[in-house]
C-alpha cells in the first residue's frame, strides 16, 4: 500500500471503508437475540449507533447482529420492547 509521504494521499485517509475496522473486539457484553421472542419490529436496527444490525430487504427475517462491528453498547437490548436481546459477558474461550 503506502510507503511514505511522497505516495500518501494528501488527506489522512485509506482507500478502504470503515468496515475494515473490526471494532467487535472492543466488546465486553455480547447481545444475543432470542429469535422466538423477536417480533421483527426492527427497533434494535433503528437505534444501533454503529449500523451493526442488518435487516433483510423484504423485512421477513429476524435482524442479524454483525459481531465484527458491534461494540456491545447494549442500546438494542435496552430498546427491545419484547426483551428479546440478552447481554452476555464475553469469555476469553469464545
Amino acid at each position, binding site marked *: 500500500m*503506502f510507503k511514505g*509521504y511522497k505516495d500518501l494521499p*494528501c*488527506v*489522512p*485517509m485509506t482507500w*478502504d471503508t*470503515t468496515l475494515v*475496522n473490526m471494532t467487535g473486539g472492543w466488546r465486553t457484553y455480547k447481545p444475543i437475540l432470542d429469535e422466538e421472542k423477536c417480533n421483527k419490529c426492527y427497533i434494535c436496527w433503528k437505534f444501533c449507533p454503529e449500523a451493526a444490525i442488518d435487516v433483510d430487504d423484504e423485512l421477513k427475517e429476524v435482524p442479524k447482529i454483525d459481531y465484527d462491528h458491534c461494540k456491545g453498547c447494549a442500546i438494542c437490548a435496552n430498546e427491545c420492547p419484547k426483551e428479546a436481546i440478552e447481554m452476555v459477558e464475553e469469555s476469553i474461550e469464545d
Partner: protein
Amino acid sequence: MVKKVITGNYASSYGAKLARAQVIAAYPITPQTSVVEKIAEFVASGEMEAQYIKVESEHSAMAACITASQTGARTFTATSAHGLTLMHEMLIWASGARTPVLMTNVNRAMAPPWSVWADHLDSVAQRDTGWIQYYCESNQEVLDTIITAYKVGESRDVLLPSFLTLDAFYLSHTYETVDIPDQDEVDKFLPSFDPPYKFDVEDPHLFGSLSFPHQFYMEWRYQISLSMEKAREKILETEAEFKKIFGRSHGGLLDTYRCDDAEVVLIAAGTMASTIREVVDWYRDKGVKVGLARLRVFRPFPVKEVRELAESVDVIGVLDRSYSFGYGGAFFAETAGALYNVPDKPLIKNYVVGIGGRDVTPDTVSGILNNAISLKDKGELDQEIEWIELKEGGD
C-alpha cells in the same frame, strides 16, 4: 464595482458573499457579531445561496465547517477571542483533515479581566494549529483577503485552512470606503472548491482514522509542513493575479514601507501599521532613515523576507500586541529566530504595546522610534524586551 462605506465586519460579510461561501456555521461574540448578522441577512433575503447553521458554540461551529468542507462545500465562519480559543482543538483538526475552511477573527483581548478591545493574543496563540494567518490593516484588505485566501487555501498544493484578523473596533466597527468588486469578476478569479477527496456515499473511504506510530502519522504531518511552505509562493502568486484583475494588492507576506535605505525598521501587524506609516513619513521628512515592515502573514512566517530586510538595517524593533509570558512577544521571538543563522544581524528589540486595546498613538510610535534610533547610535541594546507606556505607580 461599487464603492460602499462599510465596517471591517461588513467587509468580511461582503467578502464571504462574493466568494460564494456555501456553508456558514457561526456563534456570535463581541466584536464579531455583525459579521455573521450581515451574512444571516444575505441568506435570509436570498442574496446569498448558503446553508446557515446556527450552533451552540464556536467549537461546534468549527466542527460543522470542517465536515461541510469534507463534503466539498466552501465554508466560512467568524469569531473572536474566547470563541477562537474555544475552537483550538477543532483548528488543529481542520488543518489535519486538510479542509480549507476560512474564518474571520476579530482580534480581541482574553479575560480576565474582561476586555473586548484589540489585542493579538487570541490569534497568536493559534500559531501551531496549521492555519495560514493574515493580519489586515484596512477594511479593503479584509474583503480582498477573503477572496485571495480561499484561492490559496483551496489550491491542491496547499489545502489548508486560513484565518484573517482585524483589530477589534479599529477595523471591526470603523467605517471605511471599500471597493466591492463585481460578482462575475470574482467568479472568474475564484473557481468553485474542488477537493481531491471528499465524503461521497457512492465512493466511501475511511477518513481520519487511527494511525499507529509505525504507520504514517508523522508523514501526514510532514505533508502539512510541505504545504505550508508552498503556501508562501501561492500567496504571492495569487496576490499578483488579483492585482492584475482588481488593480490592488496588500504587500504579500511582509508589506514594507520606505525600507529601501532604512537604518531602523519597525515590524508590526494590524492597524497600528497605519499609525507607524504616518510617523515614518514625519521622520523621513526630517531626513531620518526609518521604515516599516508590516507583518501581514504570520503563518507561514516570512523568513526569506525578514532575512532580506535585515541585510541592510542596523536596528529592527518588533512591536507585539500580545505577550508570551516567560519570554517576549511571538513576533519578536520569530523574527529573532529567523535571523539567528544569518551573519551580520541587526540589533533586535521587542516593544510590547497596545495590550488590551491601549491606543498606540503617533506619540507612542515616536517614543519607540527615538529609542530604536538611540540603540543604533550606541550599537547595543538597552534592554531586550520593553513594555511601552506601562503605568508604574507604587510610590
